[in-house]
């Protein structure tokens, strides 16, 4: 039974890491409870998975030295690998990987915007006497642009 603990820990880590992605599946409707659970998991997953990984490594090492059977020893690699993957996954924002962020938005003057035709839609914003245009064809790809205009911070979403 003692030797099963690393497997159980790895299962917990896998569930913690996979649940947010599974629950936020785009084509379904999420309940308030689900959103609450996913937010909790995303917030605490880095800590939870790190603790599970540390525990799992210690226990797997103990099992390794106590087990006689070679195959059973080798099989301990499986929970260790799953724990490692879960710890990594908890630190990666899948949605940032799927939709490239635009951390350093570059701008040109209107007369240089040769990549646009008159028929390209733009999201336009004016603050003070400054104006910026965000081509829909660009923001529909990045979805979020954090920016400022006349020293006012704002976020462009699409």
């Amino acid at each position, binding site marked *: 039974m003692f030797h099963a603990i690393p497997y159980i820990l790895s299962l917990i880590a896998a569930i913690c890491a996979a649940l947010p992605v599974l629950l936020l599946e785009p084509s379904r409707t999420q309940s308030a409870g689900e959103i609450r659970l996913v937010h909790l998991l995303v917030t605490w997953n880095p800590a939870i998975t790190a603790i599970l990984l540390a525990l799992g490594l210690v226990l797997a090492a103990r099992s390794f030295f106590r087990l006689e059977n070679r195959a059973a020893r080798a099989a301990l690699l499986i929970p260790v690998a799953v724990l490692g993957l879960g710890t990594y996954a908890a630190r990666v924002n899948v949605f940032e990987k799927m939709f490239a962020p635009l951390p350093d938005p570059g701008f040109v003057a209107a007369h240089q915007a040769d990549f646009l035709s008159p028929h390209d839609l733009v999201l336009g914003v004016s603050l003070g006497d400054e104006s910026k245009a965000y081509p829909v064809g660009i923001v529909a790809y990045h979805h979020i642009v*954090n920016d400022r205009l006349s020293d006012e911070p704002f976020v462009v979403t699409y």
Partner: protein
Amino acid sequence: MWRSSVDGIELTFQLVGINNQNFVMADRQTGTWWQQVTGEAIRGPLAGKRLEPLPWDEVGFAIWRREHPRTQVLAGDPQHHDSYRLGLEAGDDSAGSRGSFPTLGLAAGTALPEEALIVGVELGGSAKAYPLELLAEQTPVGDTLSGEPLLLWVAEDGLSVRGFSRRLDDRVLDFVRPADDRALSGAEPIEPPTTAPLEGMPHAARDSPEATPWRAGGTLIDAQTGSTWSFSGEAISGPLAGRRLERLRVLKDYWFDWQAYNPRTAIYSGGRLGG
């Protein structure tokens, strides 16, 4: 588009997931989750707060450039330019916002298809969705929502939609298209951008200048005074010259998305669907 200061904290956002088919963003400063379409904090330390909307315009580049000659334009990341849908010609289908309106063939008694594009207006606690296809066909559309007389106007480019209040002082104006649109649009086409593009950015597909004039949005005439109004909502000639209509916030959206966040929305039927 949202102002990103909340309680004096300047937030920066990243994508974090999807909720009810609309994306959720998280701020890096507090880890709070925000619903993109409503600007509402749904989980986390700032839950219950709302982002303040920043008025914005979704219009064709020609109109924006004419109205804001000194505008800066987001050029994006040349690494991703193959993924951008840019340099569209009239009638192209652009990412999420169509260059021409799909023909839905709306018939009496049929529900709006989920993917139908609508223009949503929220006013005084009421919400109403105007199918783009009907707006484009009937523009200018005068209507009343929560007692406020409003004008929805699709520009000459067939892409750009703006909403205005039809109330000016004590008067409520009715708008019609001028008999000769071309003669009255009052503006010569401006030159297309000619400077060489940024390194790595492709040129836009170029139609002939006559086919894609860099025009203004067109004009309307009010029935009460006969003044001529530009697409920016300013009277450019006639008794009301110099006056401005109050802009109303409108949102171009898919019907399913609008409906999810405005479950009690009314639908504009254009006098065709009854109701």
